[in-house]
């Protein structure tokens, strides 16, 4: 390495500490925060430095990483690591280094609601301008390891009661070499080696006091001091009236918030205190997210909800949603003959990250739903369309012309009635399906008095045809929800029918008689939560909710009831790409759970409360945010599986995994799968190795899972 004269001893380093020069994430600069002792230097000469990764050679980076990862348990580094002395100042970069005795104070801002990343701001005695340093904890291996270890020993909190973060480790090492006094004047301010004068005033002249807008939510919450929430939380079951009494005594600002119509409405049809509270807490945290650049959250919030601390969204810059694919862009994918000039996986990648513009969906969906082969030309597609239309009308005519059967076949009539009932209550709020101005063709129909419209009749015919086409499965409730968006977009009954058949190809596992397909997906979610969100899983176990039935509706009809119409169209086209996984829908479910996990853990203790809370999320979920989160979670899952596989291939070290099924299995990433009798473990211990369960591994596959119902329909159902 570098010559000794210009080298110092690297005492501490933490990776993935960023400078944010602008408000745009793409300008963020990753680097290391470090403590470096100059040759022969005393403690007061130790440099507190920030070095951008770009200024380090690869051997230097590995030296920094080595020191970073060695910091896991004790304060003793095994062996001195020498690195080049960091630059004191830099004109071309944000790099800096300050000797310990030049530091006046350090402001610590742990991650909390509204602050994705924890940060430190260093104030020097000469009031130099030093950029704030942001700790991207979820990218920093050493912090992840620390957090995992603390979770395992159930001490996730640092000294001051906040969730542990990278800045805590930095301060711990700082304390080793200098005196650190907490200011009583400013919550988050620490004086470094203070003079007696400083100690007396405890109010440093150059500390930047964060100004909080009086109207801001944090002020409101500070005022309330969360007493309201606390009082409510102690009550297990209470009437709305009782709740209102408690609220009535709250500060005006809180009352004002409770008068927001959405908050008000929460109380309208149910009263479970925890569900009420949980929603309230979520509405606050969402408000905070919207205002995150303006609001300084204090430990009051952190102590009480702790949501978003360590929020994974903040830390994975590689995930970025893009603009939707415009008509022009879509057209440019094809050459003059109408054949793709790019690969279909490029198209899928693009659709996965951006979705499709409205005016191109009717064409693009036919590709995504396997009506058109990706390698077809325009002329080929014309003939496919003609053939598909003929085939649909032939299928439809088969039952349409069979008057005998229509009159005597009880099973058939029963299915037709069911379909008609469901069609008349599917998406009637959408203009296309709203009308009732057409007289009903069948005077014996229960809907003869109400009237219908041509689009409802088309839906009905398509579903009856599908009931014939897929005899072994037949029509099952939920299918009308899956068809209506396709019909509304494609606007051609024959083509929409085949697009629906394409969709049903993958969806039929949701409708099997024995419910095995749904069961397997709920099991996958179960295993995934065990692996990725162990704390949440433990809570769900206590709340008797690990059957994950509260996700049943969401998975059965792909969040049709949870998202607004336009968002459903977007979500489905994203999912149809199978770009990362054919079961990406499970990660969408995981993302929603992840977003709400703190609220769930804090407020929901019973199955009915969890179910209610999840059901009531309907129409409140932000799609783009959910998709981003789902993708981050997918990548994290994939990395976890890779890490375990890598570990398993190492012949030297298989014994690091315990072999008894009921003890936690620390994987390389520190994830813990807790086994229960009768439950599948996400990580199966096997001869000293840890094997990822089949349902989990399936989630990495892009291959669509097609399961047919083999039992043909017979007799009455229900």
């Amino acid at each position, binding site marked *: 390495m570098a010559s000794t004269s210009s080298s110092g001893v690297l005492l501490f380093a933490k990776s993935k500490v960023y400078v944010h020069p602008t408000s745009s994430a793409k300008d963020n600069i990753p680097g290391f925060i470090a403590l470096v002792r100059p040759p022969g230097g005393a403690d007061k000469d130790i440099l507190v430095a920030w070095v951008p990764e770009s200024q380090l050679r690869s051997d230097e980076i590995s030296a920094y990483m080595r020191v970073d990862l060695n910091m896991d348990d004790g304060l003793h580094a095994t062996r001195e690591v020498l690195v080049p002395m960091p630059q004191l100042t830099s004109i071309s970069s944000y790099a800096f280094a300050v000797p310990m005795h030049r530091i006046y104070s350090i402001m610590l801002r742990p991650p909390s609601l509204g602050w994705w990343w924890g940060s430190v701001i260093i104030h020097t005695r000469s009031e130099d301008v030093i950029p704030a340093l942001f700790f991207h904890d979820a990218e920093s291996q050493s912090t992840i390891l620390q957090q995992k270890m603390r979770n395992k020993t159930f001490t996730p909190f640092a000294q001051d009661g906040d969730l542990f973060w990278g800045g805590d480790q930095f301060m711990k090492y700082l304390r080793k070499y200098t005196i650190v006094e907490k200011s009583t004047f400013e919550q988050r301010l620490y004086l470094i080696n203070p003079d007696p004068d400083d100690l007396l005033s405890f109010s440093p002249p150059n500390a930047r006091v964060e100004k909080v807008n009086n109207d801001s939510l944090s002020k409101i919450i500070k005022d309330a001091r969360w007493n309201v929430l606390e009082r409510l939380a102690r009550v297990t079951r209470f009437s709305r009236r009782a709740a209102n009494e408690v609220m009535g005594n709250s500060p005006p600002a809180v009352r004002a918030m409770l008068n927001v119509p959405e908050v008000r409405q929460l109380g309208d049809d149910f009263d479970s205190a925890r569900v009420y509270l949980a929603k309230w807490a979520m509405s606050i945290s969402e408000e905070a997210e919207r205002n995150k650049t303006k609001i300084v959250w204090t430990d009051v919030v952190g102590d009480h909800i702790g949501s978003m601390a360590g929020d994974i969204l903040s830390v994975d810059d590689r995930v970025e949603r893009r603009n939707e694919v415009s008509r022009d862009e879509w057209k440019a994918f094809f050459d003059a003959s109408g054949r793709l000039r790019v690969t279909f996986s490029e198209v899928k990648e693009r659709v996965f990250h951006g979705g499709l513009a409205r005016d191109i969906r009717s064409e693009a969906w036919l590709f995504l739903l396997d009506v058109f082969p990706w390698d077809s030309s325009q002329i080929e597609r014309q003939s496919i369309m003609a053939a598909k239309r003929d085939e649909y009308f032939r299928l439809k005519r088969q039952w349409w012309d069979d008057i005998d059967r229509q009159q005597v076949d009880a099973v058939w009539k029963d299915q037709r009635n069911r379909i008609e*009932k469901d069609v008349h209550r599917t998406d009637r709020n959408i203009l296309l399906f709203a009308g009732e101005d057409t007289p009903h063709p069948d005077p014996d129909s229960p809907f003869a008095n109400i009237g219908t419209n041509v689009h409802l009749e088309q839906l009905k015919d398509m579903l009856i045809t599908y009931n014939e086409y897929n005899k072994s499965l037949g029509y099952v*409730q939920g299918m009308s929800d899956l068809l209506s968006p396709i019909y509304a977009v494609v606007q051609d009954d024959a083509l929409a029918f085949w697009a629906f058949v394409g969709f049903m190809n993958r969806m039929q596992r949701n409708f099997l008689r024995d419910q095995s397909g749904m069961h397997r997906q709920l099991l996958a979610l179960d295993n995934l939560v065990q692996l990725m969100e162990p704390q949440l899983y433990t809570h769900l176990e206590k709340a008797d909710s690990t059957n994950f039935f509260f996700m049943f509706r969401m998975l059965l009809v792909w969040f049709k009831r949870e998202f607004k119409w336009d968002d459903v169209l977007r979500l489905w086209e994203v999912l149809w790409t199978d770009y990362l996984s054919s079961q990406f829908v499970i990660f969408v479910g995981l993302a929603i759970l992840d977003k709400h996990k703190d609220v769930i853990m804090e407020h929901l203790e019973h199955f009915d409360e969890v179910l209610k809370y999840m*059901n009531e999320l309907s129409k409140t979920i932000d799609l783009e945010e959910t998709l981003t989160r789902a993708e981050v979670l997918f990548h994290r899952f994939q990395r976890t599986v890779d890490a375990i596989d890598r570990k398993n291939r190492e012949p030297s070290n298989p014994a690091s995994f315990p072999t008894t099924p009921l003890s936690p299995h620390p994987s390389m990433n520190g994830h813990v799968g807790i086994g229960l009798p009768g439950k599948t473990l996400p990580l199966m211990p096997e001869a000293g190795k840890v094997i990822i369960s089949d349902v989990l591994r399936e989630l990495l596959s892009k291959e669509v899972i097609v399961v047919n119902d083999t039992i043909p329909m017979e007799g009455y159902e229900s």
Partner: protein
Amino acid sequence: MSSRKKTMLKVIILGDSGVGKTSLMQQYVSKKFSNQYKATIGADFLTKQDVRVDDRTVTMQLWDTAGQERFQSLGVAFYRGADCCVLVYDVNNAKSFEALDSWRDEFLIQASPRDPESFPFVVLGNKIDVEESKRVVSQKRALAFCQAKGNIPYFETSAKEAINVDQAFEVIARNALIQEESEEYSSDFSDPINIHLDNERGGCEC
């Protein structure tokens, strides 16, 4: 500490798809009706506050489930701890009436109440607002069924016109409360609760 513990009664509403389970609940709890409640997928529940039953005030948790048979296996997660089961059919749909028996059996199997013989059911024949000529299940036939199954209380209702809905749920609440109290009595002797064991079980109230 003399204040009574607040009582939560859990009621399960079963019946074929489209007979009006969601509508009945919405009418009872929210006093509203729509032709276009979506088909229930999975399960959901509504809570009705401050229900007076004689001198008691109770809260009712009304569980709505999907009507298609294929989703019945989910019931086990929702039926447990039920205090009353409401069986609904459409008086204009014979099949929905014929299915009542299997809904009842299915419930008893999945909920497995301690004493199936005495577990309270209530039968509702819904949609009586539809013109008389469409009606296919007579009151007589329905009453005979209810009698044969151990004098199950029977009501003819219209969720749309709010006919008999409150009356039906009053009996549902009363019978659920009796069930809840008998369960508590047998399961927890130390619970300092005043128990009113009146044997009045609403018979047919039509």
